[in-house]
């Protein structure tokens, strides 16, 4: 186990993403091990969400390569990448509105997780319990409020049995109590050996989980390392905090 943990789970080299003239990712080099939890911070428009989208295959990169578990997945479809163990949550939740909460999660277990029927049921129910949504199993997803939609994003992602989980501002818009609950859930995921990349504006909840911090600005990684050190880097203070320390 510890040997596997030492290997990189994902390695990205020279990643560029352009939307016509707009350069969103401008040469990202990034690698992480399976036992890490990496936080990503950066100002709006830094390219954080696009970075996740390119990692999971929702958008193809303009150039660069992505290695997942030692295999080049740059040209592998999004659904296939999920089946290999990488999954994301969406900043703006995207529930399957016409289906029940359980069905939303079961689809993830059956497809991304590749579980046969009974294991899929168990996996889906387990994910729902972990995210505190079990009591909402039979609700239509379109009737959920924002907090539950965010929880559903997480429950669905977990049901795919991921090795690497990418969280996109899952704490945004939550109260302190709700955010603390979320931190507890994500800590539980780390105990289950899931590697985590978490984009979040609320830095203090991020720092409770992340053991490494990456700061992006204008499509580049401008700092990467120990969270406390990264937060003190002048370039980060400049870009992310707008020049004035908290």
């Amino acid at each position, binding site marked *: 186990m510890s040997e596997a943990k030492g290997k990189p789970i994902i390695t990205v080299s020279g990643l560029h993403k352009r939307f016509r003239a707009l350069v969103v990712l401008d040469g990202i080099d990034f690698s992480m091990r399976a036992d890490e939890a990496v936080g990503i911070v950066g100002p709006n428009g830094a390219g954080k969400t696009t970075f996740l989208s390119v990692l999971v295959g929702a958008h193809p990169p303009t150039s660069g390569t992505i290695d997942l578990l030692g295999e080049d997945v740059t040209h592998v479809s999004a*659904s296939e990448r999920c089946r290999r163990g990488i999954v994301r949550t*969406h900043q703006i939740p995207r529930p399957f509105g016409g289906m029940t909460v359980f069905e939303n999660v079961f689809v993830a277990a059956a497809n991304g997780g590749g579980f046969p029927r009974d294991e899929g049921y168990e996996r889906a129910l387990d994910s729902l319990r972990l995210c505190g949504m079990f009591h909402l199993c039979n609700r239509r997803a379109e009737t959920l409020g924002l907090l*539950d939609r965010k929880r559903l994003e997480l429950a669905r992602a977990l049901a795919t049995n991921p090795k690497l989980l990418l969280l996109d501002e899952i704490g945004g818009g939550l109260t302190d109590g709700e955010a603390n609950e979320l931190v507890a859930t994500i800590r539980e995921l780390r105990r289950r050996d899931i590697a985590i990349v978490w984009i979040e504006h609320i830095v203090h909840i991020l720092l409770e989980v992340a053991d490494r911090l990456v700061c992006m600005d204008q499509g580049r990684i401008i700092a990467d390392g120990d969270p406390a050190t990264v937060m003190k880097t002048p370039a980060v203070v400049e870009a992310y905090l707008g020049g004035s320390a908290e």
Partner: protein
Amino acid sequence: MSQDPTVRVERWTLQSRISILAAAIILAILATGPFFFGNNAIDKLTTLFIYVILAVTWNALAGYGGLVSVGQQAFFGLGAYAAVRLADAGLNVYVSLVLAAVIIAAVSLPISSFMLRLRGGEFAIGMWVVAELCHLLVNLDSLVQGETGTSLIALNAYDADTRHALNYWVALGSMTAILVILFVLLRSRIGSAIQAIRDNEEAAASLGVRVMGTKRIIYVFAAFGAALAGALWLSTAITFQPKTYFGVQWTAYMIFMVLVGGLGTFEGAILGALIFFLIETWFGGSGVWYLIGLGATALVFSLFVPRGIWGWLERRFGLGLLPLGYRILGVPSATRMQTPDDGGIGAAPSVGTP
């Protein structure tokens, strides 16, 4: 996480078991139809079976798959045309009808490769273009003689009574097969995957759903259904005039049946076909006013009963005769206060019935 033995995933309810039994009994009684009814009634019922096939396959495509097509007459016409061609080649007429549908399903596969790249309105109109194109191509066949058309002469091998009875049985058998296959398909993983794609394609892909393959299964199945319906229609109408078969009115009928019955509900499409059949039987002779009535009804439904009759019944009374979804038993229900937007005042306790 310990497993709770009281928590179960329920897919069949007592209500649904009774419904399946009742459906089987109704179908068995219908199978004896030709022994009791005259040819006129037999023909009427044959038409109803064809409408059911059209409604449920369009509902699978649009209601479950989110693939709203206004070009299903492409396959309806091609199915009839292929049957004409196969029968002309000397194959038994009734074998031709079914084989024609299989062939057109195969033809729809390459068509799906480019049509399914289109989204929403582009797909809808694109399918109409495909239908017009098929119409023009079929007109080029010298056997069809352009708009003059041709007939399924091979049916003359049977005397009138036998022909009516055979048409009826083949249509009933086809409808039953389509209903059973569709029910099993939509209850399977493919069924939940296609609904996920309908609700959010990108999220479905990001959770491991194979979007293109899943859409293709539904698309080909719907093409098969429309082609089968077209071939069956040919067996009752006997004449094949391209204009009649490739007309957009077929898709209009499908949309009417599904909208009125209940888009995206299995029972609703069947109910819609029955309603359409009754309206046509009673008012079909009223010419233009009949068409105006149909249009007005569809409009009223889409404005005031957007879920259709069955969708409304399902929500109002928690009905689920042929449920496709999953219901979890043993869920604590007392913790619902956290969620204020629960469907308004007087929401039935059965919220969430799939």
